[in-house]
């Protein structure tokens, strides 16, 4: 550890950010970048790598892109002496989230050709495409630009995409507010031509970089977010913005009113870091009123104060919210008034009533129609029965109005003449786009960030977890007779706050695979933050807590009271705060509130694991508490590779194959071919190989069946000894050989406790033959298997339908109707084991 790190002040001292501290590494990169150019051109042309230089990974953010890599493939590629599977995410700048049908078609097309085939709508009304490889990056940027969409300042230490209330229903005002979002975005945008130069082959700069009159030569200390809201709908979560504008109308009201100006909101921001209480989410302060003509001047002045006073030494403490808290809101107002040369008058009254979107068709003030569609997690994709990407392309092809991305990851097909509504309805229905409108309110309003597998920051699932978790919450609500309760639920994979979790009535913030911080009690209008209710707990604990609280809410709520408000009224001041302070105290003391947070990091060798019963029990206890997917993901991240999965291609084999292969494509699937498999098994192997693109590694005894029988006779008919010898020769030896020759360090197998008495004590993680052996579905019942196969559209073995429930070699397997008891299904009752899992050195 270097002395520089040791001499750094402790976290709590750094709150005031003394000026003598060294500037952060990113500051140095920005300073040396010649207007965000850096060595990006050289990086893009480097033919020896799919990556860009490390300093350029910081700069490319300012151009709207992040370098990422497929976290599932890291270990495998390293083994192949290949660098990680690098790719890029591109995020558009799209003030107010408005796109034309032509732009939609272009984006949809390029996500098919250059990205992962999905478009993602963000919580800041922008698009993201993922998985663009380096050689396609410039092409993709150019394809966007061809339809006048850029990605300048979509990420990085600048003013990000400017948000605006999305629903154009109420008034002419919306257009005015949208225009302001565009003007603000343009005004606060970096002036450097680096983007045009690098991506659009613009003329090369000669001499010093362009002046940046607002952002300055080193840009802002950290990201900066701006949004405009039209009450009473706080869809942009204006209090989460560094800089917010609340539209104030004259007394004519929403229908006919004119824009008088804006209330100014400063210092909102949601990001925080687990275990660092000096980082926290903050709702903005409303500090005054301004007229429309003053908008740009006030905005640039707020930005410039943050530019000059924001912390450039510690990035976790560099947002405007900390600048304001460190110096006080009074100081900020004084500094703002001083720089403006006039005093902002007091804020005008305003009132918010909702935070979410209004779904379905709504008629606008000018008689045009607007259809808000629910797009779960903002992910526009083609899935069986829900061909959203294709459907929206077809709609874009005939649509005469425009599309609007909402701050809640949904989509408005806007400005539809009445005559066109039926056509659009038909396309919506044909492509499964309306299904989500019929779901429960909690599901309709839920938000999730991208998280795994693409986001490098995520610690737990979010987007992929949202559907199943929501279903469980729905179950709790139904149980307490609250099926149609409006409830805001937001999940993020890390505490940085992309899905604005701190403003939800229920929020899950990722801690570790399968574990979350549960925060509760925000209002449903984006004005009050939630608080930590329980930290670092798994799904069971979350649902238990929710079940208890929702039960009490159901019994004690006042008419129309929201869940978040109830918690605050009934428990907030007391229980809630106690819990917060406990949790904070634990975090400050540096001891993790729960040993399970540490359990997932396994640093033991197989031998140590086998010898240390206590450690093994602790890990197994944790593994038993999470779901099968998490077990697999944890194993791939924590246990040594290379990995393999063994499969007999028996009745329910598709479960393990799907579970594991969907997290690590190309994982070797070891198939032990005894020479006595059913013809149907070979068909099944072929079917699954095609469906799941499996990497089958087939191993057999070197002795052909005929020769084997000539030498030994029918061993499987020769009692227990014969059977054991049969298993050793035809199964165990090839299995042992396969693991050895593939160099396997960790072996996945689909054993389940309920399969046989000999498997009743099975653990999720064991050591066999000096290797780790993982049983991700060790605790599943036949019904769990059935539900999984059904949920993923996976087939049973072809013989399943003929009455075979346990399928191995043809000579030792019987159909259910051929035996008297289930014990007899395999090897005539001598063993209900396939034979290879007892394998020992």
């Amino acid at each position, binding site marked *: 550890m270097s002395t520089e790190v040791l001499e750094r002040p402790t976290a709590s001292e750094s709150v005031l950010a003394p000026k003598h501290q060294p500037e952060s590494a990113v500051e140095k990169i920005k300073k040396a970048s010649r207007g965000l150019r850096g060595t990006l051109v050289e990086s893009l042309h480097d*033919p*020896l790598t799919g990556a860009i230089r490390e300093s350029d990974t910081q700069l490319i953010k300012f151009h709207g892109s992040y370098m990422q890599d497929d976290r599932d493939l890291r270990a495998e590629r390293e083994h192949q002496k290949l660098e990680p599977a690098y790719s890029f995410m591109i995020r558009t700048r799209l003030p107010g989230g408005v796109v034309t049908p032509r732009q939609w078609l272009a984006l949809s097309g390029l996500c098919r050709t250059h990205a992962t085939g999905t478009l993602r709508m963000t919580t800041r009304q922008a698009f993201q495409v993922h998985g663009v*490889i380096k*050689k396609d990056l410039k092409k993709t940027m150019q394809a966007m630009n061809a339809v006048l969409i850029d990605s300048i300042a979509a990420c990085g230490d600048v003013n990000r995409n400017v948000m605006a209330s999305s629903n154009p229903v109420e008034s002419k005002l919306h257009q005015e507010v949208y225009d302001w979002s565009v003007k603000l975005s343009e005004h606060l945008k970096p002036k450097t031509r680096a983007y045009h130069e690098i991506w659009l082959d613009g003329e090369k700069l000669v001499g010093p970089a362009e002046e940046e009159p607002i952002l300055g030569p080193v840009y802002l200390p950290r990201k900066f977010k701006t949004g405009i809201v039209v009450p009473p709908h706080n869809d942009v979560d204006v209090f989460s913005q560094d800089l917010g504008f609340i539209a104030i109308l004259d007394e004519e009201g929403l229908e006919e009113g004119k824009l008088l100006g804006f209330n100014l909101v400063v210092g909102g921001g949601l990001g925080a870091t687990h275990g660092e209480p000096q980082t926290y989410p903050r709702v903005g302060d409303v500090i005054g009123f301004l007229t429309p003509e003053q908008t740009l001047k006030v905005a640039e002045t707020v930005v410039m104060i943050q530019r000059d006073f924001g912390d450039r030494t510690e990035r976790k403490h560099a947002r405007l919210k900390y600048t304001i808290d460190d110096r006080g809101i009074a100081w900020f107002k004084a500094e703002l008034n001083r720089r403006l040369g006039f005093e902002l008058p007091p804020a005008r009254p305003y009132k918010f009533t909702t935070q979410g979107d209004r779904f379905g068709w709504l008629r606008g003030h000018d008689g045009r129609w607007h259809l808000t569609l629910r797009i779960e997690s903002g992910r526009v994709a083609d899935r069986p029965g829900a061909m959203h990407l294709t459907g929206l392309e077809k709609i874009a092809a005939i649509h005469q109005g425009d599309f609007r991305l909402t701050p809640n990851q949904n989509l408005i097909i806007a400005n539809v003449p009445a005559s066109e509504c039926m056509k659009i309805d038909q396309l919506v229905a044909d492509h499964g786009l309306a299904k989500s409108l019929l779901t429960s309110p909690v599901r309709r309003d839920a938000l999730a960030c991208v998280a795994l597998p693409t986001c490098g920051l995520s610690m737990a699932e979010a987007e992929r977890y949202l559907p199943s978790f929501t279903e469980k919450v729905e179950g709790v609500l139904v149980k307490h007779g609250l099926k149609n309760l409006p409830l805001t639920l937001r999940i993020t994979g890390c505490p940085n706050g992309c899905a604005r979790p701190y403003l939800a009535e229920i929020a899950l913030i990722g801690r570790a695979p399968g574990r979350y911080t549960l925060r509760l009690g925000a209002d449903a209008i984006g004005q009050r933050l939630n608080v930590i209710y329980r930290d670092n707990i798994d799904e069971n604990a979350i649902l238990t807590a929710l079940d208890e609280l929702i039960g009490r809410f159901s019994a004690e709520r006042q008419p129309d009271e929201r869940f978040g408000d109830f918690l605050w009224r009934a428990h907030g001041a007391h229980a809630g705060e106690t819990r917060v302070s406990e949790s904070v105290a634990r975090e400050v003391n540096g001891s993790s509130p729960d040993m399970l947070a540490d359990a997932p990091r396994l640093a033991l060798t197989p031998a140590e694991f086998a010898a240390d019963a206590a450690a093994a029990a602790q890990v197994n206890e944790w593994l038993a508490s999470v779901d099968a997917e998490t077990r697999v993901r944890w194993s791939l991240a924590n246990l040594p590779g290379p990995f393999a999965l063994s499969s007999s291609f028996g009745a329910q084999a598709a479960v393990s194959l799907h579970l594991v292969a969907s997290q690590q494509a190309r994982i070797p699937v070891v198939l032990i071919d005894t020479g006595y498999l059913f013809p149907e098994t070979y068909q099944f192997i072929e079917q699954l190989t095609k469906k799941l693109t499996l*990497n089958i590694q087939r191993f057999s005894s070197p002795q052909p069946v005929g020769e084997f029988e000539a030498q030994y006779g029918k061993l499987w008919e020769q009692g227990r000894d014969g059977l054991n010898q049969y298993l050793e020769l035809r199964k165990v030896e090839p299995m042992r050989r396969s693991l*050895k*020759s593939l160099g396997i360090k960790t072996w996945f197998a689909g054993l389940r406790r309920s399969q046989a008495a000999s498997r009743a004590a099975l653990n999720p993680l064991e050591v066999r033959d000096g290797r780790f052996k993982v049983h991700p579905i060790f605790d599943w019942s036949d019904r769990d298997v059935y539900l999984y196969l059904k949920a993923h559209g996976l087939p049973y073995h072809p013989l399943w339908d003929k009455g075979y429930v346990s399928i191995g070699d043809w000579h030792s397997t019987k159909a259910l109707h051929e035996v008297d008891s289930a014990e007899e299904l395999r090897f005539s009752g001598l063993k209900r084991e396939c034979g290879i899992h007892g394998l020992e050195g």
Partner: protein
Amino acid sequence: MRQASVTHDGKTHTLLEWLRDERELTRIARPLLTQVAERSKADLSELLDTRNPAALTKLTATSQVADVLAKYPAEWTPEALVAALRPVTGRVYSIASSPAAVGDEAHLTVAVVGSDTDRRLPAGAASHFVVNTPVDSNVQVWIERNERFRVPADGARDIIMIGPGTGVAPFRGFVQEREAAGASGRNWLFFGGRSLYHDFLYQLEWQQALKRNALHRLDVAFSRDQDQKIYVQHRLKEAGKDLYAWLSNGAYLYVCGDATAMAPDVHAALLDVVREQGGMDADDAQAWVADLTADGRYLRDVY
């Protein structure tokens, strides 16, 4: 049938053993085809036409013995079949490591031809044997010394290595050897494959070697990464000026890999470079390259 005892050339094995251990099953040879034609009465005159080997070449590239036997069914006795097949021969691989760097090991670069999941190409006999042989097994190997295809005795000489695909194997050993020996000459590698993402053999090692200055220049051509196909010979021409300068300055030039397409294309590219950079006509360029060869500085190990 597979257990039938067959005696041939004074040796007796079961048919299975003959086929598994003694006979060539992946390469089709003319004597077998002659027999097949006689026994099946099929007209194989085009395949057997010695003046026009193209048909046979195409067949051998895409089929194996079993395919031919299945396509032209005929009566065979075990003895006749064993007699018609050639004895199996070993397969030769370049050693991809230097003992100076890896000690008591020899690394090979093996492309697995016709994998389990991709059966478009027939399975390669040796690559599958290697893949399916357990770690720590004993296999028969022999060393075939190639005294000519070696790093220059004079470590101060620059070397240029052209090795797309598995042709890169010896050059991994070269670079290891020259680094371990502290050779002062520069090392320049041309590598090629289909895609950067999947086929960049030893990518991490080359990246690190460049950082350590154990490798001084690396030019790559990935044929499928852009609309028009780019191969090593294109990179050779692009780097013509430097290439000619290095060679004029005494550098050694090595080519390893595919003999059918790559080596002739590289040779043609080399002639072009010499002609253009040396300001020569075609004959002079030929002579210049011939001198390079005579000098022992243009070395090829192609297959």
